[in-house]
């Protein structure tokens, strides 16, 4: 009870504090002489945003960029040494390769299935319920999702019998190499699958299983946004196509998809950026062990576990550099869409 009251006090204090700072600045500006005052009217409104964006984000980004070419103590210039180390060290290189797989596999499946659901759910009875069920995992944390899925991939460590996937695979009589043996399979630990073992620099099957968690958790966003876009396609266009004798599939491919191209690009880049920064899922499911690390996870490990400041900064830079083409691509598609309208 006391704890609760203290928390309420803290919350109120925090909020009142911010309001007070705003009002003080506002009052000060209004005491200035008229001519000067006009020029500074915007200050109390935008000052916090500017401090947060410039002081918090921009300056920090520059500092990280600088730190990435310095050694771990931040004193000695090492050029591209940290970047070279990321590539030369097996673990971090695998993390980079894994991240590429996350972006391509995760994004294409998420957007693809999202589009499929959005299309077939459109106008069907119970559309809202079905879409809500598919959307719900979005409201669940990625950590929660990682834990939830450990009950599906459950490993021998705590009891492989408790895992749904092992039960399904055994019921389907899949061969030993696919986990159908009497022993079951430690899904998140084993990298090979179906007799194939990936080389140490390549992503394993367990990385794909982690991506499945991400897809499960993110598909709702893609579905909802795409669904709204599909509903926005003008009736006249669709009816014209139908009257011309186009089948439902042809109408969808030739009319709907081109019309919602801009939205598809936005959703694709949102999901791609999300999968590039995959950290929570990995942290909760494997902690990045068994060759499942990603750039974002490696960043965390390098900085907080291994105290490698320079390398961590370089990993953050790699993340930034990989975000860039995604954003640029989205801008280009949007511009083209605006031009054609």
């Amino acid at each position, binding site marked *: 009870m006391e704890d609760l009251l203290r928390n309420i006090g803290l919350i109120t204090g925090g909020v009142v504090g911010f309001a007070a700072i705003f009002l003080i600045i506002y009052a000060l500006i209004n005491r200035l002489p008229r001519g000067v005052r006009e020029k500074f009217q915007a200050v109390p409104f*935008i000052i916090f945003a500017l401090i947060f964006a410039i002081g918090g984000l921009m300056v920090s980004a520059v500092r990280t960029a600088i*730190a990435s070419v310095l050694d771990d103590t931040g004193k000695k210039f090492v050029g591209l040494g940290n970047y070279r180390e990321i590539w030369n060290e097996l673990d971090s290189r695998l993390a980079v390769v894994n991240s590429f797989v996350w972006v391509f596999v995760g994004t294409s499946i998420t957007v693809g299935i999202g589009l499929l659901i959005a299309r077939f759910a459109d106008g069907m009875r119970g559309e809202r319920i079905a879409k809500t069920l598919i959307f719900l995992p979005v409201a669940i944390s990625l950590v929660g999702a990682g834990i939830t899925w450990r009950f599906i991939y459950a490993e021998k460590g705590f009891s492989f019998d408790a895992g749904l996937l092992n039960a399904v695979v055994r019921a389907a009589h899949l061969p030993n190499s696919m986990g159908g043996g009497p022993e079951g399979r430690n899904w998140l630990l084993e990298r090979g699958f179906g007799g194939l073992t990936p080389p140490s620099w390549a992503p394993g099957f367990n990385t794909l299983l982690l991506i499945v968690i991400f897809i499960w958790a993110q598909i709702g966003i893609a579905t909802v946004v795409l669904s709204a876009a599909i509903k926005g396609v003008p009736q006249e266009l669709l*009816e014209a196509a139908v009257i011309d004798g186009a089948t439902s599939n042809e109408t969808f491919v030739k009319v709907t998809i081109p019309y919602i191209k801009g939205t598809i690009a936005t959703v694709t880049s949102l999901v791609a950026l999300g999968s590039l920064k995959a950290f929570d899922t990995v942290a909760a499911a494997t902690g990045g062990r068994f060759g499942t690390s990603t750039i974002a996870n490696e960043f965390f490990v390098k900085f907080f576990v291994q105290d490698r400041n320079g390398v961590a900064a370089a990993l953050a830079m790699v993340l930034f550099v990989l975000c860039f083409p995604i954003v640029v691509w989205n801008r280009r598609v949007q511009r083209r869409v605006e031009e054609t309208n």
Partner: protein
Amino acid sequence: MSETAGLKRVRQRRVKESMGTSIAASAHTRSGRILVWMLALLWTVPTFGVFVSSFRPEADVKSTGWWTFFLHPTHFTFSNYNSVLSTGPGSDGLSHFLLNSFRITIPSVIISVGVAALAAYGFSWIEFKGRDWLYSLILAMLIVPLQMCLIPILRFFTGGMHIGSTTIFPYLHLDSSVVAVWIAHSIFGLPFSIFLMKNFIGALPREIIEAARVDGASHLTTFTKLVIPLSVPSIASVAIFQFVYIWNDYLVGVVFGGSKNTPIIAKMVEVTGSRGQSWHLLTAAGFVSMVVPVAVFLAMQRFFVRGLLAGSVKG
């Protein structure tokens, strides 16, 4: 087969009725419908499994799959929830961490929505030099991944800001404090919140704002008495978005809050990390941690979806 037959029927009806009702009917063939419901079902299985597990005794959770519960429905217990929600000393109680999550999330949401609303008003309705340029600068921060800013902001909280030996900002002793988490969350969510709110607030009818200004209302009055009440849908959508995002966050909470502010999400990772012992508790804890954002989302679904759609779908 039935798909084409259905289509033909739909098409004939379309042509007969010509213009009018939704053409969407043509897409919901039976196979499409079955596919959607199968996926919807599949999508609920993982969460349902955790839900069922959370009512099973420890020994059962660890030895058999949750679906076997239905073979022995008498093996039912509230003890997982009891231990998770208990507050006694030395208990496994996670309610403390649940409370931490509220303590982190609520002020962070209020601060970031407040800062974003103020900025959205400033950038939309106050004329000043360099306005568009500054706004673009804030938007440009959308592409900077959180990881790039994490360490420098952490350094700021653990020692102020210095260039060489010159102190630009003093050390505020905010490391591992909940205030640091609030500010960090507000910083990271800012570009997106401003983007969404500026779209809305900037699109309010010019005549209304100008009429208020001509009548002598100050910017503060216009903002609080006019813009805020008119922007409730936008404020709600950004607030819900931020709430779900911050509640579900792991990285920021664990990096800035220190051990005494650990949110429930971070605590769950800690418990999973400690191998095996507490899986039965994790089910209940996991479910409790999901209930809050899911309830917020379901209650405010309309706003949430609208917030997601802002700027990405036209008309």
